[in-house]
């Protein structure tokens, strides 16, 4: 649908961020090369331009980083909580000061729209550090007994979909409780974590308290298996999560896993349709659907199916896909060629299995990794697109007649991370929310996050909670 009012380009300037041609590993407060000198390139997914070359950590580097964290642990954990708090408050403030720079950087390295990094990722990152900073000297009152102790060295492995936000979710509670960390960012999005290392330097954080290792899955596996790591925290795929659970079996390591999902977004016939459509769009097209808690299954009551789908399709026709640095862009690039191939394969499978595919007219840029917003209708519970996590801008539409059927279908998944409920009837919200087996439920809204609000899954979506008072437990010996 050609618009009568085309938008002029409104790009955010990238001159605010200065990306060095190469970066080392951040170990014991210093940037150093990998022991074996290996490096890899990180590209901008929207253009395939090489942004920088970063060191690839190997086992020797993992060992060096864990030793640095171990050495730093003694002093860091012995600091009065009020002093640890002040370091974290400093970090929160510096993140706020540098938030536009970090937003542009994140958009470049990840491919997500600047509107999201500027308005969602970065404010949440700063808020998360600010929130946990305040806990550091109040742990006696957190409900875990008097003087709860930290675990030691935390090995943390994070994904590429919210690189800096996932770093904040991992590092802020770990440091507040007195642990030291070795964190490995995802292979395709290493840059914001390296910029965070610089923020640690500006904040005067003691050496070795935070160590950043860039590299691929092998570095992550080595970190998790390292015998001197006391705590493992992972956000990523369920398959890797299971592998980690096997690796740590029989050890002392405490584990939290935040894994995949196949969230149901349930729309009842009395829902305000326009609001529901916005919620559905936000649920599955936010961050190109590369969100573990995405509302990737739309369960719509049969009587309003046609009306809702018409509105939804009309709305998808207005989404703007393209340059992630453009302030008007709604849909950015897919993070990597590999992820694009996975989304493509699963969408093709949906078509092959007989579901009906639809996308709005949408021109994809020549370079970079792109996937048009996609709907599947006539989807049954047996279809692959209704069962597998696609982690892309692909929505599967199923129908139901009664609330019981909606609940049964919503729960018919090995996952249990998120769900949405759209209805005007308060008692129905409470009854349905009560029966859904998922860790986060949004009623008449979707994809809302807050540092005070615990986040995490049931069943194969993992265990443990991040955020809020609950998030402290993962890093305390309780």
């Amino acid at each position, binding site marked *: 649908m050609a618009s009568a009012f085309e938008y002029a380009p409104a790009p955010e300037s990238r001159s605010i961020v200065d990306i060095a041609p190469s970066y080392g590993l951040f170990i014991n407060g210093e940037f150093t090369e990998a022991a074996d000198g290996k490096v890899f390139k990180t590209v901008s997914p929207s253009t395939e331009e090489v942004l920088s070359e970063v060191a690839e950590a190997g086992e020797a580097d993992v060992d060096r980083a864990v030793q640095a964290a171990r050495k730093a642990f003694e002093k860091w954990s012995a600091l009065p909580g009020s002093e640890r708090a002040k370091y974290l408050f400093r970090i929160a403030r510096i993140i706020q000061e540098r938030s536009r720079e970090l937003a542009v950087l994140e958009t470049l390295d990840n491919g997500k729209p600047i509107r999201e990094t500027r308005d969602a990722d970065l404010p949440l990152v700063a808020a998360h550090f600010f929130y946990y900073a305040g806990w550091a000297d109040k742990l006696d009152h957190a409900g875990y007994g008097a003087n709860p102790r930290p675990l030691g060295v935390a090995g943390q492995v994070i994904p590429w979909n919210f690189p800096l936000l996932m770093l904040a979710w991992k590092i802020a509670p770990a440091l507040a409780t007195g642990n030291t960390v070795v964190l490995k960012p995802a292979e395709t999005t290493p840059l914001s974590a390296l910029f965070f290392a610089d923020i640690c330097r500006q904040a005067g954080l003691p050496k070795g308290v935070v160590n950043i290792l860039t590299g691929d899955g092998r570095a992550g596996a080595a970190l998790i298996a390292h015998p001197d790591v006391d705590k493992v925290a992972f956000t990523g795929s369920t398959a890797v999560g299971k592998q980690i659970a096997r690796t740590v079996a029989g050890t002392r390591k405490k584990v939290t896993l935040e894994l995949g999902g196949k969230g149901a977004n349930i729309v009842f016939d009395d829902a305000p349709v326009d609001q529901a459509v916005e919620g559905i769009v936000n649920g599955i097209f936010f961050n190109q659907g590369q969100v573990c808690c995405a509302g990737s299954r739309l369960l719509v009551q049969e009587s309003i199916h046609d009306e809702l789908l018409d509105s939804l399709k009309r709305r998808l026709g207005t989404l703007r896909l393209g340059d992630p640095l453009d302030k008007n862009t709604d849909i950015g690039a897919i993070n990597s060629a590999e992820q694009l191939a996975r989304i493509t394969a699963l969408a093709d499978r949906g078509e092959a299995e007989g579901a009906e595919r639809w996308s709005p007219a949408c021109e994809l840029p020549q370079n970079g990794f792109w996937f048009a917003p996609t709907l599947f209708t006539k989807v049954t519970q047996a279809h692959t697109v209704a069962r597998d996590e696609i982690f892309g801008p692909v929505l599967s539409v199923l129908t139901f007649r009664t609330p019981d059927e909606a609940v049964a279908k919503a729960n018919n998944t090995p996952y249990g991370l998120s769900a949405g409920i759209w209805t005007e009837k308060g008692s129905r919200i409470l009854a349905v929310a009560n029966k859904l087996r998922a860790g986060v439920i949004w009623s008449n809204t979707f994809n809302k996050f807050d540092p005070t609000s615990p986040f995490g899954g049931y*069943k194969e979506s993992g265990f443990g909670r991040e955020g809020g008072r609950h998030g402290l437990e993962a890093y305390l010996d*309780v």
Partner: protein
Amino acid sequence: MSDARLSVLKTYKLYVGGKFPRSESGRVYEVTDSKNNWLANAPLASRKDARDAVVAARKAFGGWSGATAYNRGQILYRIAEMLEGRRGQYVREVADAEGLSKSKAADQVDAAIDRWVWYAGWTDKIAQVVGGGNPVAGPFFNLSSPEPTGVVAVLAPQASSFLGLVSVVAPVIATGNTAVVVASERSPLPALSLGEVLATSDLPGGVVNILSGRTAEIAAPLAAHQDVNAIDLAGADEALAKELEIAAADNLKRVLRPQPVDNWSATPGTERMTAFLETKTVWHPTGSLGASGSAY
């Protein structure tokens, strides 16, 4: 007791789905006291018995997790009442099983009865202690509540055949989980007798299922079972615990690793409850009355 009268021996049976079946395998094993005197033949439960017990536990989960916390508390308290009435029987069984004097065995049984009372009181309090509202930065009412994880496989402690058993089972069901319990391998009789108390305490059938036999044999299919949500490894040794934890990873069961317990009589904390709870957080928009809304 008159010499002329021959006593009536009890046939010990499993407790599954509120009924008392023998092992489907038809197998039994000899249970002896600490001096190797024969006490009874206990069912040697099979993998199939374990799977049947999971089916029963799953079937009971909806009703038990959906019961009010007050109702669950009343039932747990009722279990204490029933045990108190049969105190003598359990003192005898525990003394035989663990080679304890009558008075030491009585201490164990009394502590076990009191443990049910402790957890009966927790059912309608744990949500207030570990849940609550979250002050999010936006116009939302945001509430976190604990919910039971689901079906929990419980390997009861090997040494403490009754107090240890109660100490691991009560916290699991207090919060609304259902349980498949593997009794102490060497001393299963107090556990099997507990089934008789549970069956007469208004506890719905299937909420607690009790199996006796070889711990390793029964635990393996439970740890690997796709419809079991969590496993308490209290009764596993180090090697078995590791093996079971690896199997449990297949559907990401919540795993409570074995911890050394010197004294089961010590007041338990909340950890055995929170290990088998999920936190559900629900966001509700609060809306806004805007400028024209009431200021009161």
